[in-house]
């Protein structure tokens, strides 16, 4: 459809609507005193003195606080992790050698799935209740805000998983060295899961059946983390050097921390377009 180019100037209708009956807000009513001038609107140069990098901590603190307010979701993911891992000894039976052999893979797959379970809450509720719009308009850069959200997500999912994993490893008869490497590999790997998951969660915002789509989108990207994470524990179990696996996880962590906040911020902006 082709339309003529029309230029509209808002017409002054109902100009000077002086309403004597309109209620006025008086400071005697307990209205907070408002300053006369807007702080930074008039100046052509935006204040640079404010520390906008606080945005990361503001957003981490906010999301962690919210997660603790609705503890249920945090605990659910943790209980899911414990239950999935515990199913294997029950199903396979007390074959110590076999259990010890599959332990790293089982713990890592369960960790991966329970992180996947928590991904929808990363952005979906903020998207639905309009908080995400306000975050886009916050003076803090969106990149730092989403980075803070990822950090909070890891603090409330990945970190508890890594801390509880040694207890589950005992069920499989893992030794001290193996347990230590398992925890280290989870500490290095679960932040990557949170970061990659955030990309998927942001891309599928507002999409119907988004949580399944996130799984399909993100699970292939989780495969390297799974291989290196479980591989590190297997390596220490077979007496090989596990340093390479952990180094690769660390490299992934650094790369993810640098790249994913930008990707997530871009995806969030697209979702709200």
């Amino acid at each position, binding site marked *: 459809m082709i339309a003529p180019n*029309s230029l509209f100037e808002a017409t002054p209708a109902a*100009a000077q609507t002086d309403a004597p009956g309109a209620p006025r807000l008086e400071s005697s009513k307990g209205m907070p005193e408002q300053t006369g001038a807007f702080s930074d609107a008039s100046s*052509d140069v935006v204040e640079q003195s404010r520390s906008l990098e606080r945005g990361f901590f503001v957003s981490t603190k*906010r999301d962690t606080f919210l997660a603790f307010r609705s503890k249920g979701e945090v605990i659910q993911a943790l209980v899911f992790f414990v239950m999935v891992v515990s199913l294997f000894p029950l199903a396979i039976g007390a074959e110590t050698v076999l259990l010890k052999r599959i332990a790293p893979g089982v713990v890592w797959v369960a960790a991966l799935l329970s992180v996947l379970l928590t991904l929808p809450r990363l952005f979906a509720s903020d998207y639905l*209740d*309009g908080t995400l*719009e306000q975050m886009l308009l916050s003076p803090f850069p969106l990149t730092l805000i989403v980075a803070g959200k990822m950090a909070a997500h890891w603090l409330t999912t990945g970190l508890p998983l890594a801390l509880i994993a040694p207890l589950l490893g005992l069920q499989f008869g893992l030794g001290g060295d193996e347990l230590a490497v398992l925890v280290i590999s989870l500490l290095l790997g679960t932040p990557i899961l949170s970061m990659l998951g955030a990309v998927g969660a942001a891309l599928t915002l507002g999409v119907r059946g988004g949580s399944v789509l996130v799984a399909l989108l993100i699970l292939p990207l989780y495969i390297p983390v799974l291989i290196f994470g479980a591989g590190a524990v297997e390596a220490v179990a077979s007496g090989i050097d596990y340093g390479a696996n952990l180094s690769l996880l660390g490299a992934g962590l650094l790369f993810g921390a640098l790249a994913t906040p930008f990707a997530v911020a871009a995806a969030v902006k697209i979702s*709200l377009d």
Partner: protein
Amino acid sequence: MTGAVPETERKIKPNAMPKSSAVQGTFRAEGLTLARGARWLFRGLSLRVCGGEALLLRGANGSGKTSLLRVLAGFTVPDGGKLFWNDRPLAPLGSVGRDLLLYIGHANAIKDDLTALENLAEALVMDDVAAANRTPEALCSALDSVGLSARRDLPARKLSQGQKRRIGLARLLLVDKPLWLLDEPTNALDTDGVNLFTGIINSHLERGGLVLIASHLSIPLAGTVRELNLDETVELAA
């Protein structure tokens, strides 16, 4: 201070103004064009709002009021057109725009798990309001003045829609941004709430603030109030 600021007073140059008086900002949009599907929601639309002025966006459902506000806020990148603040181009969601704009959409940005007070506090932290302006006393008195003093510590899930909307009004009282974009702000508000809202807008206009409101209601605002009817733009574009 009552009534509208006379037109002459509002045209004084910024550098000639005493420090306490209001800021003279001009928000301008030029040639905004946005298509939805095969239809132009608006095409070549320009508007200008000066300090102390309110612009009411009118139009039937689906005429593009919300879309226009989202373009002005920077969420939606238009198919054509530019935004200016004091004749300087505004990038969508750029740092200048984010310091200027306050947008309240259909959603209240209220977390059900937090209390009214916590919700307000979190919103102001995200707005980077100076700590001195968001002391517990300031928050409480803002909530008092929007009539939520007794509900301050209730989880927001126990509040009605109108009460959640009033938390948003309390935020308007404490955030120091000149350009307000409000989408159906009176939704779910009762008569008293609408009066309260009108008062807040009027005092913002008196300080030289700019307000764009998409609303069906006629709001008795002081100062220069102009209307933009989006139905007409659709007709002309068809």
